[in-house]
C-alpha cells in the first residue's frame, strides 16, 4: 500500500513543477496512464470467466499489494470511472482557460493535482476491501473533490457549499466506520469480508442501514442529498460532470458491495430500498422542475437518477426475497446499466451546460434562449442528453429503464399480495418520474436553446472549441450505440450480476436479448422512417416555395423576446399542482404611493428544499448556537479559572462518592 503514497508524492512533485503547461500536460499523462493500467486490469477481469487470480491481478498481487481484490463489479465501476474522468479532463482543458488569468498559478496546479488524485482514489475505492485503506482512499476522494469544488472560490457561496459537502462526507465516513467496526467485532483486521460471517449469525438490516446512511450520503439518497444541490452549481462544470457522473456512483458501489454479502432480511431491506429510492427519485425530479439554475436542476436530476438506480438495486434484493430470479437479475442489471448510462448522459449534460454558462456568464435559464442557432453542436449534445435522461428511445436511458420496468412487470405478473403492493408503488413512481423528467427537460432544453434570447448577451455567444466538443462527442457515441444496439451490452451485464449476487440458477441472456433485438429493430425503423419522410418532404418541396414569416401572435407581428413563454410560466400549472409538497415562494417589490412613474421591478420565484432547510440546516444552526452560548464560561478572569479547578475536584469527588465511577 506504500505504492499509493509513492504515487501521491510523485504526482505532487511532477505537477508542482513551476510551469503551467507542464502541470496540465503531466496531469493528462498521469490520468491517461492510470486509465490505461486500471482499464487493462478491469477488462482482464471482465473477460475472465470466474473470479480468478490471473493476468494483471496476479502481477499486482505479486509485486504490489495483495490488498487489491478486483471482481467484476469493481471492474465495471473502474471502466465507468475512467471514461468520464477522461472526458472530464479533456473538457477541463478548454473550460478552465478563462480562469487561468485571475487564479493563482499554484491553485490551478493544485486543481489538476486534485483531479489526478480524485481519479486514483476513485479507482482504488472499488479495489480495496480492507477497512483502513478503503476509508483512506474514500477520504482522499472526498478531499480531492472538495479541492476541486472550491476551485472558483471567489464566487459567492462556493466555499459554503464545499464545506457542507466536506462535513457531510466526513459524517458519512464515520457511519461507514461504525458499521465496519460493528460488523468486525472480535476480528483483528477490519475488512468487508468479515461481513460474511457477521451476516451469517446476526440480523442483517441494522448494519445494512448504517452502511446505507454512510454510502447514501455520498450517493445522495433522500434526506442525505442536501449537499448535492449546493456543491454541483458551485463546482466547475467538468467537476460537476465527474462528481455527478461517477463519484456519487461510488456510494452506489458501496451499497452494491454490501448487498453482495447479504444473507438474510432480503424482504425488509429490499422493500426499504425500493420505497426510499422511489421517494428519492420523485423528490429529485419534482424539485428539479422548479429550478431556474441549470446546474442546480441537473444536480437534482442526479438525485432522481440515484433514485432509479436504487430502485433497481432494491428490486434485485426483493427479487431474491420472493425467489424470482428474473426480477432480481433484471433489477441488478438495470441498476448497473443505469449507473453507466447516467454517468454518460449526465456528464454530457453538465459539459453542455458548462459551455453555455461559459458563453452567457449566467446559470439562470430565464436569461438564456435562442442558443441553438449560436452554438448548434452544444445544443445537439444537450438535446441528446436530455432525450436520454428522459428515458426516451432510441437512447441509452430507455434501455436501463426498460430493464427496471421488465423486472417490475415480471414481479407484478408473478407476485403475491404484499410484494404486489411494493411493485405497484415502485412502478407508479417510476412512471411518474419518467413523465416529470420529460416535463423538466422539455422545459430546460427549450428555454435555453430555442426561441429568442431572453436577455441581451453582452458578448455574442459562440460555439466552444474543438476539445470541449470532443469531450461532448465521446459520451454521445455510447449514448446512441447503447440505445440502438442494446443486446450487445446485456450479455456482460448479466454475467456481472450472475457472478455477484445470489441469483440461484443463472438467467440465460436470451431472456433479455430477444426484447432488445426488437427494440433495436424498432429504433432502426424509427430512424429509417424519419429518413424516408425527410426525403419525401424534400422531393415535394422541390417544386413548392418555402418562405419564412413572423411568428403568429394573433395578428400582432412585433413580437419580441419579452413576450416569449418563460420557464416559470411553463411549469406554473405544475407548481400549483405540487404546492402542498413544495413551497414556491416569490419575492417582489410593490409600488409605493408616491411612485408616479414606476421604476424597474424584478420578480423572483424560488423553491426551497424543505428537507435541506428543516432537517439539516435548522438542527445544525441549533447546535452551533448552543455551543456559542456555552462559551460564556471563559470569562478571562483568573479567579474563575481557579474556581473551575475546585469545581472539577468537587465534581469528581461527588461522582466517586455516589459510586457513579
Amino acid at each position: 500500500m506504500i505504492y499509493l503514497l509513492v504515487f501521491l508524492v510523485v504526482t505532487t512533485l511532477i505537477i508542482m513543477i513551476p510551469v503551467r503547461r507542464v502541470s496540465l500536460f503531466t496531469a493528462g499523462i498521469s490520468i491517461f496512464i492510470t486509465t490505461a493500467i486500471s482499464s487493462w486490469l478491469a477488462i482482464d477481469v471482465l473477460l475472465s470467466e470466474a473470479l480468478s487470480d490471473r493476468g494483471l491481478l496476479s502481477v499486482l498481487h505479486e509485486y504490489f499489494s495483495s490488498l487489491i481484490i478486483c471482481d467484476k463489479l469493481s471492474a465495471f465501476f473502474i471502466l465507468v470511472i475512467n471514461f468520464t474522468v477522461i472526458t472530464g479532463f479533456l473538457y477541463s482543458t478548454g473550460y478552465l482557460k478563462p480562469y487561468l488569468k485571475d487564479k493563482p498559478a499554484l491553485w490551478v496546479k493544485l486543481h489538476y493535482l486534485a483531479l489526478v488524485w480524485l481519479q486514483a482514489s476513485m479507482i482504488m475505492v472499488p479495489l480495496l476491501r480492507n477497512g483502513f485503506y478503503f476509508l483512506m482512499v474514500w477520504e482522499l476522494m472526498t478531499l480531492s473533490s472538495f479541492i476541486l469544488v472550491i476551485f472558483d472560490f471567489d464566487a459567492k457561496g462556493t466555499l459554503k457549499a464545499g464545506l457542507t459537502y466536506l462535513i457531510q462526507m466526513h459524517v458519512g465516513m464515520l457511519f461507514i466506520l461504525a458499521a465496519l467496526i460493528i460488523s468486525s467485532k472480535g476480528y483483528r483486521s477490519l475488512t468487508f469480508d468479515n461481513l460474511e460471517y457477521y451476516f451469517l449469525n446476526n440480523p442483517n438490516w441494522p448494519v445494512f442501514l448504517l452502511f446505507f446512511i454512510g454510502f447514501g450520503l455520498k450517493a445522495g439518497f433522500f434526506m442525505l442529498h442536501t449537499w448535492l444541490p449546493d456543491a454541483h452549481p458551485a463546482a466547475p462544470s467538468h467537476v460537476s460532470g465527474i462528481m455527478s457522473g461517477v463519484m456519487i456512483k461510488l456510494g452506489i458501489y458501496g451499497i452494491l458491495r454490501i448487498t453482495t454479502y447479504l444473507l438474510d432480511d432480503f424482504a425488509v431491506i429490499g422493500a426499504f430500498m425500493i420505497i426510499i429510492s422511489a421517494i428519492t427519485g420523485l423528490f429529485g425530479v419534482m424539485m428539479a422542475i422548479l429550478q431556474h439554475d441549470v446546474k442546480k436542476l441537473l444536480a437534482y436530476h442526479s438525485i432522481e437518477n440515484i433514485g432509479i438506480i436504487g430502485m433497481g438495486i432494491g428490486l434485485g434484493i426483493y427479487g431474491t426475497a420472493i425467489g424470482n430470479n428474473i426480477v432480481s437479475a433484471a433489477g441488478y442489471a438495470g441498476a448497473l446499466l443505469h449507473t453507466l448510462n447516467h454517468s454518460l448522459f449526465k456528464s454530457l449534460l453538465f459539459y453542455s451546460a458548462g459551455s453555455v454558462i461559459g458563453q452567457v456568464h449566467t446559470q439562470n435559464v430565464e436569461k438564456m434562449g435562442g442558443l441553438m442557432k449560436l452554438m448548434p453542436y452544444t445544443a445537439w449534445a444537450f438535446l441528446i442528453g436530455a432525450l436520454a435522461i428522459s428515458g426516451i428511445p432510441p437512447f441509452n436511458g430507455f434501455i436501463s429503464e426498460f430493464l427496471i420496468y421488465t423486472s417490475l412487470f415480471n414481479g407484478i405478473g408473478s407476485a403475491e399480495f404484499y410484494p404486489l403492493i411494493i411493485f405497484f408503488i415502485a412502478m407508479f413512481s417510476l412512471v411518474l418520474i419518467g413523465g416529470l423528467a420529460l416535463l423538466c427537460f422539455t422545459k430546460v432544453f427549450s428555454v435555453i436553446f430555442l426561441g429568442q434570447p431572453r436577455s441581451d448577451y453582452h458578448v455574442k455567444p459562440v460555439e466552444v472549441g474543438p476539445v470541449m466538443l470532443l469531450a461532448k462527442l465521446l459520451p454521445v457515441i455510447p449514448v446512441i450505440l447503447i440505445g440502438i444496439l442494446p443486446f450487445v451490452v446485456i450479455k456482460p451485464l448479466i454475467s456481472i450480476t450472475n457472478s455477484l449476487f445470489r441469483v440461484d440458477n443463472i438467467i440465460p441472456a436470451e431472456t433479455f436479448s430477444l426484447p432488445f433485438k426488437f427494440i433495436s429493430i424498432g429504433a432502426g425503423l424509427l430512424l429509417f422512417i424519419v429518413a424516408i419522410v425527410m426525403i419525401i418532404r424534400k422531393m415535394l418541396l422541390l417544386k413548392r416555395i418555402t418562405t419564412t414569416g413572423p411568428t403568429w401572435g394573433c395578428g400582432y407581428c412585433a413580437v419580441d423576446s419579452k413576450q416569449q413563454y418563460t420557464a416559470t410560466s411553463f411549469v406554473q400549472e405544475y407548481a400549483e399542482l405540487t404546492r402542498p409538497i413544495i413551497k414556491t415562494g416569490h419575492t417582489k417589490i410593490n409600488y409605493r404611493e408616491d411612485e408616479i412613474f414606476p421604476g424597474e421591478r424584478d420578480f423572483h420565484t424560488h423553491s426551497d428544499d424543505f428537507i435541506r432547510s428543516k432537517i439539516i440546516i435548522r438542527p445544525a444552526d441549533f447546535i452551533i448556537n448552543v455551543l456559542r452560548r456555552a462559551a460564556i464560561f471563559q470569562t478571562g478572569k483568573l479567579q474563575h479559572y481557579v474556581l473551575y479547578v475546585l469545581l472539577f475536584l468537587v465534581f469528581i469527588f461527588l461522582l466517586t462518592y455516589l459510586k457513579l465511577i
Partner: protein
Amino acid sequence: MLILFYILFGISLVYIAATEKFKHYIQIYTIQGILLFGMAIIELKNFSFLNLTFILAETIIFKSIVVPYILRKIMQRTGIFSVHKRSVLGNYTVMLMMIILGISLLLAKVLSIPSVNEVYMVIAYFTLFTGLLLISVRKYLFGHLVGFLIIENAVFLFSIAIGNEFPMLVNSGILLDIFIAVLIMSMFLTRIGHKMGGFEADTLSKLKD
C-alpha cells in the same frame, strides 16, 4: 504545645481572609513563617545541623524575611497600599471561611491517615482552601499572590503533618523552585502594577474568545 501553634495558625488565616490592607498581609505572613518554624522544629525527628539549617532557611529566612521584603518592595514600587474593592464583602468572606473549616473537618475525617493527628490535617486543608478562597474572592492581584503564598504554606504544613522526608537535594530543589516562582511573580506583579496602574484583576481579563 504543637496544637497551640496550629490553632494560632488557623486564627492568622481568619485574619488574613478578613483584611485587605497589604501591610497586614505581610505582617500575618511573617507571623505564619515563624509559626511554621516552630512546628517544624517540634516535628523534627532527627536533629542534625543540616536539617536544622534547612528548616531555618525554609521558614524564617524565606517566609519571614525574604518574601515579606519582596512584598514591601512591590508596595513601594507601585505605590499601592490597599484596595477597597472586593467581589465578596469581608463578613461574607468570614462566613465562607467557616464553611471551608467545616469542609476541611469533613475531609480530614474522611481521609484520615492513621499515623497523623487529624487536627494537623484539618489545619492543612483549611490553609489550602483559604489560599484558594483568597485567590477566588479577592479581585486584586496582590491578594492572589498572597493566596499563592498561603497555598505554599499549606504544602509545607502537609509535608510536616505527613512527615515526608526527602533527600536534601530534592528538598532544596523544591525550595529553589518556590523561591524563583515568588521572585518571578513579584517581578511581573510590579510590571503589571506599573503598566496597568493598579492591581485590579479585572484589568487582566482581556484574553478570551
